[in-house]
């Protein structure tokens, strides 16, 4: 049995709210293999970002706290790791880029210093060598005039350039896993495509794994090998990217796919999922998706289905009574 690069098991993250607490992440399992790109998909508020922050243990200054589960990174459980050792992994083997390039860089520090910080820290380079490495990284992410740009401040760059800087920063210590939280959402469409291409080529060059968090299925199709769909803090479906688009099993996934406009097809109106993600403190009792589901059955309201493998397929899971019924029927007839 090979060891996965990242293995998340039963991860729960609670947020203090009012007097009590709510679970923003309620038992999430998935894994990423070396060099693999896993997409984490769902509407906003489904717990994707909290999951990524939990993996990075960046919940400080939020009311959130990991309450159960494990996050094994190359076999080490990050949840139990002392802060000091966690710091050695962050930005080094495990790097992250964020959604908002405009606010994710410190406005009063030069780009060069911000890039050099992790390099000096993790690679132990001196000031001068770190600067050279920073310039090298900027070139790598396709920034022209890199040796001038290191002395600039963030406000002098466009959003796309800033995201390139963020990517350079994350890649600077050759991470084994890159977590990208909606890396292109805040950018213009043309810039989005450039950034995606960049990430794709970098990923292939560096042979690193990637956890790509997005609500954009177009980005998923472009970049991912496998996909995990999240809803209300839970994984509802897991599939290879091909399987997911060809044969979505969970009604929620189907809804997501149908709500993407297709270019060649002339669609009169976009199908979208009715209703909203339920508030964390007012979760329905049974299946969390039941109130919005068009196939809802009595069983769905009574009991929450478990995330179970779909018959006959590897790394294929669904959390739906419907698929589980099909499974059972298929099993009987065979």
């Amino acid at each position, binding site marked *: 049995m090979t060891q996965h690069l990242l293995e998340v098991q039963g991860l729960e993250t609670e947020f203090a709210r009012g007097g009590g607490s709510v679970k923003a992440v309620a038992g999430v399992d998935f894994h990423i293999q070396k060099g693999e790109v896993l997409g984490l998909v769902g509407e906003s508020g489904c717990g994707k970002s909290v999951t990524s922050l939990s993996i990075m243990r960046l919940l400080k200054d939020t009311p959130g706290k990991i309450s159960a589960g494990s996050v094994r990174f190359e076999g080490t459980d990050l949840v139990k790791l002392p802060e000091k050792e966690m710091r050695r992994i962050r*930005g080094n083997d495990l790097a992250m880029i964020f959604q908002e390039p405009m606010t994710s860089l*410190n*406005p009063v520090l030069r780009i060069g210093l911000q890039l050099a910080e992790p390099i000096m820290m*993790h690679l132990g380079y001196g000031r001068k060598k770190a600067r050279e490495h920073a310039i090298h990284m900027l070139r790598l992410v396709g920034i022209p005039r890199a040796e001038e740009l290191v002395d600039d401040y963030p406000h002098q760059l466009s959003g796309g350039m800033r995201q390139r800087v963020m990517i350079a920063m994350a890649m600077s210590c050759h991470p084994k896993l890159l977590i990208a939280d909606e890396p292109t959402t805040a950018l213009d469409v043309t810039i989005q495509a450039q950034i995606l291409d960049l990430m794709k080529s970098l990923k292939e060059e560096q042979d690193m794994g990637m956890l790509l968090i997005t609500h954009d299925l177009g980005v998923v199709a472009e970049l991912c090998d496998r996909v995990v769909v999240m809803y209300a803090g839970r994984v509802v479906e897991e599939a290879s990217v091909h399987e997911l688009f060809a044969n979505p099993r969970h009604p929620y996934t189907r809804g997501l796919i149908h709500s993407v406009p297709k270019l060649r097809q002339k669609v009169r109106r976009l199908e979208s999922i009715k209703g909203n993600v339920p508030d964390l403190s007012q979760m329905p009792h049974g299946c969390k998706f039941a109130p919005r589901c068009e196939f809802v059955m009595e069983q769905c309201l009574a009991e929450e289905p478990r995330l179970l493998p779909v018959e006959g397929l590897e790394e294929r899971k669904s959390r739906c009574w419907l698929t589980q019924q099909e499974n059972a029927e298929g099993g009987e007839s065979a």
Partner: protein
Amino acid sequence: MGRYALQRLLGVIPLLFVVSVLVFMFLHLIPGDPARLIAGQDATLEEIMGIRQQLGLDLPLWKQYVHYMSNLLSGDLGNSIQSGLAVTDMLMSRVMPTLWLTFLSMAWALLIGLLIGVVSAVYRNRWPDYVGTLAAISGMSVPGFWLGLVLIQIFSVELGWFPTGGVDTWKSYILPSITLGMGIMSMLARYSRSSMLETLREDYIRTGRAKGMREYVVIGRHALRNSLIQVVTVAGLQFGFLLGGSVMVETVFSIPGLGRLLVDSILFRDYTVIQALLLIFATQFILINLIVDLLYGVLNPKIRYSS
């Protein structure tokens, strides 16, 4: 930066003009005839007329202002009604103690205020925060002159560590600076706390942590630098508070500075001196705000590097 600085500099001019008009009008705002007030109760009509002419009060108002301004620009602030000495000379000898006092007060207030604010923000809603907040509100509520008296009683009278007043040694400045800086320290502590709390919620702080930076680097380099811009601005704006307080503290500690002179002049109704002091204080206040504005430009790269 160049244009920004020029804008600020030009912006000060109308303000200085308004202040000069207000200060000029001061003599005319006093109820009654200033010449009669200056001359005293049992002055003869000739004496009053003499004073009126001497002060140029018989001229039309605008001419009086032009006269006043041309004197002012040549460094002539008139003579003291009380002592007959040139006001300019009186001021010169008293500038330094006040400058030292305000400078030292601001320095420690900024340092300690920032420290309390940062510690409160980092340990938000835990005991260091509560202690810091209570200390800040207390510091804001304590009457400055009373604090000065208590410090004198304890450290000068009882323990004999510091002189009770005057400006003979550097030690003389310690108790007055503590007294004068207390209020502003509290204000800065509260302000830097809320500013740090805001900054710590910024995305780039998370980026810093995601890079694996040590917490003190995240707080000291990434957060503090950003908060500092705002805190320094506020500190500068509160400088006027110090100028007002220096009047108080100089009285309590018998420091021969500008504030003490203001109190004495008011009690003796030495209007020319009061006028000059109001002008000096207001101008000083405006200039300090200007310096703060420029400093803000230097600290904030967004302004420094905009063309």
